[in-house]
């Protein structure tokens, strides 16, 4: 099968999955969901690693390193932040900790 069509197929199917899978979300979960999705696209880190690791041009390496830093901020920070939000939704038995964080 033609490469481009393969990617197109995977793309189209992913679009449907993406929409259907969240179609039942309740409005209180909008923000955590947004934040979680935001963390997921941090996987661009993988791309940043690949390109940085395959070049030997100094300028490219510098840019690559910047990209890696940014991407890992996105990915790691995103998941941690989302978890922190959700903590407050789900376990209402840990106010002490949450207070400190939130204060």
């Amino acid at each position: 099968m033609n490469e481009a069509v393969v990617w197109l197929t995977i793309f189209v199917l992913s679009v449907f999955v993406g929409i259907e899978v969240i179609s039942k979300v309740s409005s209180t979960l909008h923000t955590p969901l947004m934040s979680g999705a935001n963390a997921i696209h941090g996987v661009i880190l993988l791309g940043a690693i690949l390109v940085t690791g395959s070049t030997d041009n100094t300028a490219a390496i510098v840019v690559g390193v910047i990209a890696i830093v940014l991407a890992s901020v996105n990915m790691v920070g995103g998941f941690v932040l989302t978890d922190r939000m959700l903590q407050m939704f789900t376990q209402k038995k840990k106010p002490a900790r949450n207070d400190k964080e939130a204060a």
Partner: protein
Amino acid sequence: MHSIPTWAQVVYLACAVCFILALKGLSGPKTARNGNLLGAVGAVVAVLVPFIIKNPATGEHLHHVPLIVAAIVVGTIGGVYGAQKVQMTQMPQMVALFNGVGGGAAALVALLELHEHVAAGDHENWFVWAATAFTIFVGAVSFAGSCVTFAKLQELMTSRPVSFPGLSVLFGGSLIAAVVLSVMLVRDPAMNYGIIIGVLGLLFGLLLVLPVGGADVPIVISLLNAFTGLTVAAGGYVLANTVLLVGGTLVGASGTFLTILMANAMGRSVTNILFGALKGGSTLGGGEASDRPVKSLQPNDAAIMLGYADRVIIVPGYGLAVAQAQHSLRELVDILGERGTQVDYAIHPVAGRMPGHMNVLLAEAQVPYDQLKEMDEINGDFKDADVVLVVGANDVVNPAAKTTPGAPIYGMPILNADEAKNIIFMKRSMRPGFAGIENELLFDEKTQLLFGDAKDSMSKLLNAVKAL
């Protein structure tokens, strides 16, 4: 690319599945946390693969591993620190920031890919070049846009819409220029084109978000989030990598859908939010404090009204979060409850600065969930309420949403606080709410204002009620 070992491809697929399940989990209250965790696992595993396999492009193992690891560590520390230290009230801008850097990373990756291909003089099919241009542009848009949204929410700049003559021209111009350059890049790939496209992207992102009113910013964050997802997907195509493609597309699709859901929850239309300002009329009004006369009262008067009421409804808003008064509020409600008053919290879907903001805040203060009533549940009860206590809320009870077609919040469903017998507002001044428009309810003859920071007023009120 055919040199990616099969097992690695399968691992990539597994990670993609993790992302799907993560989104699925995140859309249900019970499964949300595990969903997020699963997503993290998928992402981490995906990132580990390139350290193990030979690089498909070069056929060699990864170069500069120590440098790369160091960069990851730095980024991780930064991310964790930011995520841990941010205050609840500032989470939305944090999301914006994280999203922005992600978009920036995607753009840089695409630039590097372009650089490699040009250097190697590859003859990729035109679709690859187009995808590269797309990634650079949209990634830059997302980066610049997110930075502006961050500035707006963090109040580093006015949260009011910024517009200037010729903005729309510049806006359209940068877009057209970017398209033209993309075509040129496709026809003969060169680094400079890529860089200029990136710059245009930054400009476009700036112009896209500047005219948006603060209240709409979270919707824009969600939209930019979807953009970044799409850039990652395009990057995945360029790098022929399944995780990036699927993961990015998932975020792009669900993000777009979520944006629409959020806009509906605020009674706004996405196009309106984005291009309302360009079409001339700014999306939000001014923010001046009014000097019209109002009735104000003292904590102990308020205490008496509350103490002898049968039915009280609390309307929490952004101010409650700012003042961190949720704990004393809960105490007050408990005491009123013991006195036999029926008290509920009326939660507007967009009270505060993020959907679910009030739920988070009150859950943090251990308020039992059954006291939190969604808008549709409780809107019928206001007419029976003796007192409505509005704590740091404003727009969510602003009748302008029903009465003033011109108003930026017009069409947003609101809490019918105006139907109650008495209304008490706790706020510091006459300054308007996020939407920056006057709230007629403040001047209603049933309304009295309890001025002061919500936390002080609340503790005063609390003592007064105890003293009854």
